[in-house]
C-alpha cells in the first residue's frame, strides 16, 4: 500500500515565501510521496520557481510534479524545471518514474495535458492552423502520457496531469469552458495505460471525485477544490514487484 499526498494549483509567487513550506511539516508521517498537479507558480518565472523550490526543499518525501499552464506563462518551462530539479523536485512531461516504497513499486507517469473537450463536445483537428495546433497538442500530450504509462515497470501506476481527463471532476465549472479544462484523450491514455489512479488540477471550481469510462478513479486535487494543503490517497497494489 502506498500513501500519496497530492495537490495542484498552489500558485506560488514571489510574494509567497514561507506560505507553503509550513504545510509540509510532518508530511513524511502521512505520505510516501507528494505529487503536484501543475501550476506551482503564478507566471512561470525563474524567480517564482525559486520560491517554489525553497518551499518544497524541506519536504521529507520525494516530490514529483507536472507543470501547469501558469508554469508555461513565462515561456521558459525548461528553466522552471531546472530550478525545481535543484530542490529535488522531479518534473514529468510525457515521462514516468518509479519509486520503491517498501516492497511496492509506484510508477508515476506525468504530463501537463491540455484542453480540447470531452466526448460529444470536443474540438477537432480541422480548420485553421491554430485550431489544428490546439487539438494536435492535446492529442500529442495524451499520447505521451499513454507512452509513459506503458513504459512503467511497477505495481501501481498513477497518472499525473494538470488538465483533467474527465468532465466529472469539472462539475462546478461552467460547461462552456470545459474544452479549456481538459480532454478525453487524457482519459483514453489513463484507461489504455492501466493507471490505478489519475490526479489532476487546473479546475479550481470543479469537484474532487470522478471516474474514467474505464473505471479509473480520477481526483481533482486543485487546492481550492480539496480545501487543504494536500489530499491523501492510499493505493494498494494488486501484486508486488518481482525484481
Amino acid at each position, binding site marked *: 500500500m502506498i*500513501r500519496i*499526498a497530492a495537490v495542484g494549483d*498552489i*500558485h*506560488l*509567487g514571489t*510574494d*509567497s515565501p514561507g*506560505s*507553503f513550506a509550513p*504545510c509540509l511539516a510532518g508530511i513524511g508521517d*502521512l505520505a510516501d510521496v507528494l505529487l503536484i498537479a501543475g501550476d506551482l507558480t*503564478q*507566471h512561470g518565472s525563474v524567480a517564482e520557481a525559486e520560491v517554489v523550490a525553497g518551499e518544497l526543499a524541506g519536504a521529507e518525501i520525494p516530490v514529483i510534479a507536472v507543470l501547469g499552464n*501558469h508554469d508555461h*506563462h513565462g515561456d521558459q518551462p525548461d528553466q522552471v524545471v531546472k530550478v525545481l530539479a535543484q530542490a529535488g523536485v522531479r518534473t514529468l512531461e510525457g515521462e514516468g518514474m518509479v519509486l520503491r516504497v517498501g516492497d511496492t513499486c509506484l510508477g508515476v507517469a506525468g504530463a501537463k495535458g491540455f484542453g480540447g473537450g470531452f466526448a460529444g463536445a470536443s474540438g477537432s483537428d480541422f480548420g485553421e492552423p491554430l485550431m489544428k495546433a490546439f487539438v494536435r497538442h492535446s492529442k500529442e500530450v495524451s499520447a505521451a502520457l499513454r507512452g509513459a504509462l506503458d513504459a512503467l515497470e511497477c505495481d*501501481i501506476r498513477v497518472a499525473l496531469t494538470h488538465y483533467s481527463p474527465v468532465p466529472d471532476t469539472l462539475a462546478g465549472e*461552467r460547461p462552456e469552458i470545459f474544452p479549456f479544462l481538459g480532454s478525453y484523450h487524457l482519459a483514453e491514455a489513463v484507461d489504455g495505460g492501466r493507471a*490505478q*489512479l489519475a490526479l489532476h488540477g487546473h479546475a*479550481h*471550481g470543479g469537484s474532487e471525485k470522478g471516474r474514467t469510462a474505464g473505471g479509473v*478513479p480520477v*481526483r481533482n486535487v486543485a*487546492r*481550492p477544490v480539496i*480545501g*487543504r*494543503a*494536500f*489530499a*491523501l*490517497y*492510499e*493505493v*494498494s497494489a494488486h501484486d508486488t514487484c518481482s525484481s
Partner: protein
Amino acid sequence: MDDAPRGLRESLKRVAVTLKEAQIPFALGGSYACWARGGPEPVHDVDFMLRETDVPRAVDVLCDAGLRPVDPPEDWLTKVYDGDVLVDLIHHPVGRAVTDEMLARSRDMSVDSVRMPVLDATDWFEMTLLALDERYCDLGRVIPMIRAMREQVDWTQVRRATAESPFAEAALLVATRLQLIPAPAGLSPAGPPGPPFTGPPFAGPPSAGPSPVGLPSSGRGSAGEAVTTPPADSGAVTGAPESVSAPAFGSDSALVSDSGLAAAGQLDVTEPAEYLAGELRERLAEDPRVAELGLEVAVASDAVTVRGEVALETRRTAVDIVLAEIVPDRPIRNQVTVSQQESPPTVESVS
C-alpha cells in the same frame, strides 16, 4: 396582398402632391414615415401631420382633388378617403399640437419617387412610443421599427420626451437590452426630465478622438440625425451564470460612465457591460499582481463585483488595485476569498 400597399402608396402620393401644390405645410407621418426611413411597409392607412389651422384648407383642396371627407368623432385628426384608402390628417398626435418647429424638423425625402417632407425620426418615435397604452402595446410592431430607424434617432431626446409613459419605458428597455439603442448616458430613463442635456449622448471608441462619431444631435431642430455608437447594456457577468444582474427599474441602472475613459487609457469602459465584464476578467487573469484565471466579474450600474478564490491575501487586495486602475469611477465589491491551507484531516483509500 400586393394591391393594398400599392393603392395606399398611390393615395399617399396624390395627397402629398395636392398639399404641396396648395403650399400647405405638412409632413408624412405614421407608419409610412417609418417605411420611408427604412421600416416595414404598412398595410392599413396613410397619415399626414398638419397644423390644426391648416386642416380645413387641406380638406378643401383634397376634396377638390376628388377625395371624400369624413368627420370622425376624434378631436385630434380628420379623415379623407381616396377611394377605399383612408388618409388621416393629424393635427394633435398623442395630444400634442403639430407645430411649425415640428414641421421644420421634417426632412424632404423621396417617397416612392415623390419628394415630400417626412416627419423627423426622433419626433416619430416620441409619438409612436407615447401612443402605446394598455390595449395597444404590441412591442412586436415597435421593435422592428426601432431596428430599422435606430441610427436616425436622438434616443436621449426620446427618453426625455417619453419619460412619463411606462409603455415607452418598457419598449426602450427592451430595445436597450437587445442592444439596439444606447443605454441612457447620465440621465435616468424613468425619472422626470433630467438636467439640461449638454454633451454628446454617448461616447464613442477612445481611439476616435474627442468627437468620435461625428456630431450627435444633442439638441432639437437641426437637420442632423443622431449617429449611435454601440449601446451600453445594463448588467452582465462573466464567470458565473447565476449572478447575471438584471437592471433595476427606475434607477440609473444602465448608466455607463464615460468619464473614466481618459483614466482607463486603453479600455473602453463605455462598451456594453458584458464585454466590459469579460475584459476586466481578462485583465485580472493577465495582470501579474493577480494572475487568477478563475475569478468571476459582474458589472452592474452600482458596482463591479468580483468573486472567486486566490492563494494569498496580497492577491485579494491586488484585485481592488488593478480594477481601480481600469475603472476608477466604479465602486469595487471584492468578494474574493483566500484559500485555506490547514492540515489534511482525511485519507481516502482508492483501491
